[in-house]
């Protein structure tokens, strides 16, 4: 297989001459080695970013990334790609802002266009209570040095002329906040870009390889059982989102996680009409327009546990009702596709990144409805945690122990809508 080359305007021109038939594979498909220095389980954004930073920041390149299907087809390839760092608590601000900063330089760093679009993210208030809450958040966020501001009704009207601002609507809009650096990026590009860059530094990406168990001796992990045989490693990092409880069960401990469907849908493509990301907690929907012109929308989880990657129609009905309430102009738009992913929900709506009761086994999960925005930052601090066998200071508050100490990081209100 040809070596994965740098992408540039020249490589594009060269390949155009051959009708794009001779591009080299972006990453290799090697046979598993019997042992590695570290194994990452789960080829979503979090696992791939972790493998990349292990190689890049810590020089650990003898790494296998093990994915049961093709990479990037879990939640990473199913999400609505909202990126922001306007979280209330200091601990969250630190990790989400690290992530946003890394996103801002990622296309250059990975030599892969992630199509980051910082088009601004607007949160609506529909009651005095909402308004005070978003003002409080704006101030808390600014104290952490992160951009965030209130919008006047006139500014809001100018920014989104098609938004229903009638005082007679069912839940009248009375105010809004914005994070101007918030926006969207291309989900597949995050997975593929990290995969290509990790492979380039020597990481073996093993697709269609499922982890079926852990080999644990005297409280230490020695490797993983897979559908392609046993693979040894003294360090194993697990980032499998909705399947975290299944893997914890294999390793013999319990997690405070429930797996739920989270649904989203897109409309037929429209001419450009809406150039921010909008979210409303009270009317409960969030919405953006993709580069192809499709409206992308989502809301909250289905309330029951599921591993089925599909949800129930009542949620879709709610999302559409909320969309039409805020944007009467969209009432005749046709929907094209709907899907679900299985998200790993934690009681405090914050992730778990750190050590586990098994030494050498590390866990990165609980990102639930909102872990696309955190992929670079999470991979960065998780790689450090694995390399040093010590939580990165930004990861430390997100330990599994916080459920015994009581130091929960309650982000249920994080900008209202679930993601």
């Amino acid at each position, binding site marked *: 297989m040809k070596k994965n080359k740098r992408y540039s305007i020249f490589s594009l021109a060269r390949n155009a001459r051959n009708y794009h038939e001779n591009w080299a594979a972006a990453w290799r498909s090697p046979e598993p080695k019997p042992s590695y220095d570290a194994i990452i389980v789960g080829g979503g954004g979090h696992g791939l970013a972790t493998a990349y930073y292990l190689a890049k920041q810590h020089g650990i390149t003898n790494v296998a990334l093990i994915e049961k299907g093709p990479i990037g087809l879990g939640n990473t390839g199913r999400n609505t790609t909202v990126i922001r760092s306007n979280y209330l608590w200091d601990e969250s601000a630190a990790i989400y802002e690290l992530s946003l900063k890394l996103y801002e330089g990622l296309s250059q760093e990975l030599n892969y266009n992630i199509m980051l679009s910082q088009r601004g993210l607007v949160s609506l208030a529909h009651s005095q209570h909402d308004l005070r809450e978003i003002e409080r958040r704006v101030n808390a966020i600014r104290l952490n040095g992160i951009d965030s501001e209130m919008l006047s009704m006139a500014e809001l009207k100018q920014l989104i002329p098609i938004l229903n601002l009638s005082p007679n609507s069912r839940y009248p809009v009375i105010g809004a906040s914005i994070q101007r650096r918030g926006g969207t990026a291309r989900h597949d590009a995050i997975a593929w870009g990290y995969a290509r860059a990790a492979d380039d530094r020597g990481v073996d990406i093993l697709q269609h390889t499922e982890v079926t168990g852990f080999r644990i001796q005297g409280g230490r992990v020695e490797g993983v059982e897979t559908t392609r045989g046993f693979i040894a490693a003294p360090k194993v990092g697990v980032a499998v989102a909705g399947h975290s409880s299944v893997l914890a069960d294999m390793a013999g401990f319990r997690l*405070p996680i429930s*797996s739920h469907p989270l649904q989203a849908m897109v409309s037929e493509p429209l001419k450009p009409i809406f150039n921010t990301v909008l979210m409303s907690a009270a009317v409960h929907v969030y919405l953006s327009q993709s580069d192809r012109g499709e409206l992308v929308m989502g809301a909250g989880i289905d309330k029951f546990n599921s591993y089925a990657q599909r949800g129930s129609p009542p949620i879709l009905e709610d999302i559409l009702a909320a969309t039409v309430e805020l944007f009467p102009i969209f009432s005749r738009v046709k929907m094209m596709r709907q899907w679900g992913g299985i998200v790993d929900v934690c009681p405090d709506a914050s992730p778990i990144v750190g050590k586990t009761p098994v030494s050498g086994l590390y866990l990165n999960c609980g990102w639930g409805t909102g872990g696309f925005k955190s992929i670079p930052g999470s991979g960065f601090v998780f790689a450090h945690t694995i390399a040093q066998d010590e939580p990165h200071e930004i990861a430390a508050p997100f330990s599994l122990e916080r*459920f015994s100490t*009581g130091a929960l990081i309650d982000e249920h209100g994080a900008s209202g809508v679930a993601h």
Partner: protein
Amino acid sequence: MLRIECPHCGARDEAEFSCGGEAHIARPKEPDKLSDAEWADYLYMRTNPKGILAERWCHTFGCRRWFNIERDTVSHEILRVYAMGEPRRESGT
């Protein structure tokens, strides 16, 4: 869309019900004697199987009564509906 057989009213659409999560989590009998880890287990740790789960549902927009079901979390098939207080089956979960 789930169709759930309320033991009191009959089969109704999911939209009439609220899901109360995992069933059979017993409140500790002697809370003063619990360690922090035991509290964490009671309050936060959850059985989250890819397979059969025993869970509580309430027929909120109907008789407003609670009951238990056993449901497959992959196929969503409801295998058993039974009363609150009735023990779980030994097999399954």
